[in-house]
């Protein structure tokens, strides 16, 4: 959508106006779809037995069996898929269900990493498919009476159940309603789209502030000593997550919000020279960092 120079959105942190200029030139939409074979099958016979034995309706409960019991090949793929989806969520801003807003600044790094993840995903799938005949035979012992050979997919069709697909789409412009209808209806649709667009963009820009707020409040909580003077237990990730977020926010600030950049730089300054060992050993170090973090929380509206 080509926003006019007078069109603005509100900065969620300070409620100030931010000029987004042309979003379609600064970001794109990305849709990532990963699907795997779950190997979960409803066992109708056992379901009926259990429901009958419990004197319940036949639709009151279901029994599912896992066709790859005792094997971690498929679990590795599922775990990796979940990791890829989570990573995608951190690298993009929320737009619509299944679709994220990817700032152009983050595009090349995102694309490179996504290609590596895709290749590794299919390497895991190939490894699973190579082992599949042996794993399938093993299930005859592991599933016991639940085993039914015809419930397992053929090795020829099995690869089709694993997908790693992504599409890059432009952020659509509001005037692009190519439908034949009355001018009044078209105007209504455009107005509706512009409102939706504005809401989506404000929501997308809310996300980096939320992430920053979450990290800051977590740090403040963990850096506050207990009443007896002992420190709370915290991991190295208290600093690592902050450093990672500071790096990510340089690429997620799609509208170049100066307040977000200011908050990011304040956090970066506070954590880059911090040693986690000092934080654990010295209450003065914890207090100093907590003061810095609290000052960021106090400075902006969240």
């Amino acid at each position, binding site marked *: 959508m080509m926003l006019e120079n007078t069109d603005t959105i509100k900065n969620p942190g300070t409620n100030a106006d931010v000029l987004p200029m042309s979003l379609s030139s600064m970001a794109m939409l990305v849709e990532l779809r990963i699907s795997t074979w779950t190997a979960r099958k409803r066992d109708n016979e056992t379901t009926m037995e259990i429901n009958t034995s419990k004197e319940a309706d036949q639709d009151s409960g279901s029994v599912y069996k896992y066709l790859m019991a005792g094997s971690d090949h498929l679990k590795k793929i599922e775990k990796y898929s979940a990791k890829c989806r989570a990573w995608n969520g951190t690298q993009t801003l929320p737009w619509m269900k299944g679709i994220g807003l990817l700032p152009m600044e983050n595009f090349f790094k995102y694309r490179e990493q996504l290609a590596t993840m895709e290749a*590794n995903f299919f*390497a*895991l799938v190939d490894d699973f498919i190579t082992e599949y005949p042996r794993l399938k035979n093993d299930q005859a012992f592991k599933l016991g009476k639940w085993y039914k050979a015809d419930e397992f997919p053929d090795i020829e069709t099995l690869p089709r159940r694993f997908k790693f697909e992504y599409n890059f789409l432009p952020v659509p412009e509001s005037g692009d309603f190519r439908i034949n209808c009355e001018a009044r209806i078209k105007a209504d649709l455009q107005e509706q789209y512009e409102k939706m667009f504005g809401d989506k963009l404000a929501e997308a820009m809310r996300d980096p502030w939320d992430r920053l707020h979450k990290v800051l409040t977590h740090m403040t909580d963990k850096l506050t000593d207990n009443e007896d003077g002992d420190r709370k237990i915290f991991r190295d990730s208290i600093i690592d997550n902050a450093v990672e977020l500071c790096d990510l926010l340089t690429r997620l600030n799609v509208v170049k919000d100066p307040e977000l950049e200011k908050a990011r*730089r304040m956090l970066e300054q506070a954590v880059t020279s911090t040693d986690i060992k000092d934080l654990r050993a010295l209450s003065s170090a914890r207090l100093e960092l907590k003061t810095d973090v609290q000052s960021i929380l106090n400075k902006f509206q969240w």
Partner: protein
Amino acid sequence: MADFVNVRLPAEYVLDPMLKELVDKLALRHPTFTFGTKGMNSETCKNWASTVPKGKRMPPRDDGVNYLRKISVHCGSEFLGSISLDIRYSRSSGSEIVYSIASWRVRNDRGNQNVTRTAKLDVAVRTAKNVFIPQNTKELMAKAESVISSALGQSLADLRRPISHSTLIRSQLELQKYLFYHLKGEEIPASVKQSVESAFTSVKYSTAMSEYELAEYMGNKPMRFIHVHNGDYLMWEDNECQEREVVSRTLEELPEQIQSHISVLHLMQDNELVYDVGYRCDSENFAVLEVPA
């Protein structure tokens, strides 16, 4: 076992199975890291390879492919460290095969300062996660500053040397005679005159003197060090609170004067000093004259 795209080995090597367990976990966890033999020459690879795997009992290979026991870890062009299989001897457990993780971030008080060893896979994964961290901008700038100031100092010394060490003057005695006779107003002996004047009027001496003056001029000027990282320019700047911090700018975001200096230096050779512009250490490290505020 799966072959991941960020594990890159020459065709004649495969990873030792015990090492592959660790490398596969790390490769999945860090898709931006590459695991391979980059930076390892063929001799090193041969020394760290064998037909029989160290960790597990398996028959030796006879297909010309060897098991590699050491691998280097990179993030882009940055070398993060290496992982290898080593043998550790102890009185209680005799000898055991251990994971050996080397990185500049590992600091040991005893033994090999930059290497840590463990027999446990999960400990090795955790250690790798803690030490294989790309340098942040402060670390990059600190390293770049050290490289640039060392190279700049060396270049300035090289430029000064012919004059400061009088390397172009064949005989100090002749020079003294020349000056003595000249200051006394007497006729300078022909051989002395010819020898001294030919040295001081030669093109070589003129060039050396120009370079010396260049070094003297530029050596006294305050310089700002700039490091290029992933296409961005890193430099130290004072923030609003007058504290020094590392900032990252694109070429277009640099102050105009610095932008023009950098553009000139990009055209120069490595280790070249340019009058009133700055110094090019290499394609990623520069020192530009400070622009007055």
